[in-house]
C-alpha cells in the first residue's frame, strides 16, 4: 500500500490541500479507523462515534485549504475529531449518557470488575457523566484509555500541565460527587 501521507509536493497531502476529492478519499480510507476509535474513546457510544466520524471528515474537508502538508495529517485529524466529540458531549444531558447500562452494552473489553457492585459502577458512571465535558475528555483519555499526556494535550489543544490539572480536578469532583451519594471510594 502506498504511503498516502507523504509530504512530497504532488503527494496526497498536497492534493488534499488543493481540494482533490480522490486525495481526500485516500486520507479518509487511511485514517477513518483511528479517528473513529479516538472519538469512541471520548463519547463511548458507537452510533454517535460513527456520526461524529462523518462530521469530523466533513470539517476536515471544509478546512482543507488551511492544512499544511508539511505537518502530519493524523494529529490534525485527531484535534478536529476531539473538538467534534466535545461539541457532542456538551449537547448531551448528563442524565442520559455514560450510565452503567450504556457502558455495559458497548463492545468494550475487558469488562468491568465483577467484584465491584453494580450499584457503585452505576453511580460512578452517573457522577462521571455530570462532570464538565472538558474534564471528562481529559480524564477518560488519560486515565481510562491510558493515552500519553502529550497526545491528549495535542488533541485537546492544551499543555501537558493543563491535562494533568484537568485530570486532577475531574478525579476530585468525582470523589466529592460519590461521597455525596454515600460512596466512600
Amino acid at each position: 500500500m502506498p504511503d498516502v501521507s507523504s509530504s512530497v509536493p504532488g503527494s496526497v497531502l498536497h492534493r488534499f490541500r488543493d481540494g482533490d476529492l480522490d486525495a481526500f478519499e485516500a486520507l479518509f480510507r487511511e485514517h477513518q479507523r483511528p479517528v473513529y476509535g479516538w472519538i469512541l474513546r471520548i463519547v463511548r457510544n458507537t452510533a454517535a462515534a460513527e456520526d461524529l466520524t462523518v462530521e469530523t471528515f466533513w470539517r476536515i474537508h471544509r478546512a482543507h485549504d488551511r492544512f499544511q502538508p508539511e505537518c502530519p495529517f493524523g494529529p490534525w485529524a485527531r484535534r478536529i475529531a476531539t473538538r467534534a466529540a466535545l461539541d457532542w458531549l456538551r449537547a448531551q444531558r448528563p442524565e442520559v449518557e455514560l450510565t452503567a447500562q450504556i457502558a455495559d452494552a458497548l463492545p468494550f473489553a475487558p469488562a468491568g470488575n465483577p467484584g465491584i457492585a453494580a450499584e457503585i459502577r452505576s453511580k460512578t458512571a452517573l457522577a462521571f457523566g455530570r462532570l464538565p465535558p472538558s474534564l471528562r475528555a481529559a480524564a477518560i483519555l488519560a486515565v481510562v484509555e491510558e493515552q500519553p499526556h502529550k497526545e491528549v494535550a495535542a488533541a485537546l489543544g492544551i499543555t501537558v500541565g493543563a491535562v494533568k490539572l484537568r485530570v486532577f480536578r475531574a478525579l476530585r469532583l468525582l470523589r466529592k460527587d460519590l461521597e455525596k451519594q454515600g460512596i466512600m471510594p
Partner: protein
Amino acid sequence: MNAQDENRIKQLLKQTLPPVADGAEPERDLWPAVLRRLDADVAPRHAVPWFDWALISGLALFAISFPATIPVFLYYM
C-alpha cells in the same frame, strides 16, 4: 486528595468504564455518508419557501376574481 485516594478513584473509574478495545472500527462504510454530507453542502439553497408560494397564489386568485383591481395594483407598484 492524597495520592492513595487518587489511585483508588482511578481504579474505580477504570473498572466502571472499561477501555475501548484496540482496533475498534465502524460497523459500516462511512464514505458514502461523508459524500452525502459534502453534497448537501454544495446543493443549491434557493428553494422558495411555502409562504411565498401561498402569497403568489392568493394574489393570482384575487386578480382573477376581481380583474378591475389589476390597474389599481399596477398603479401602486
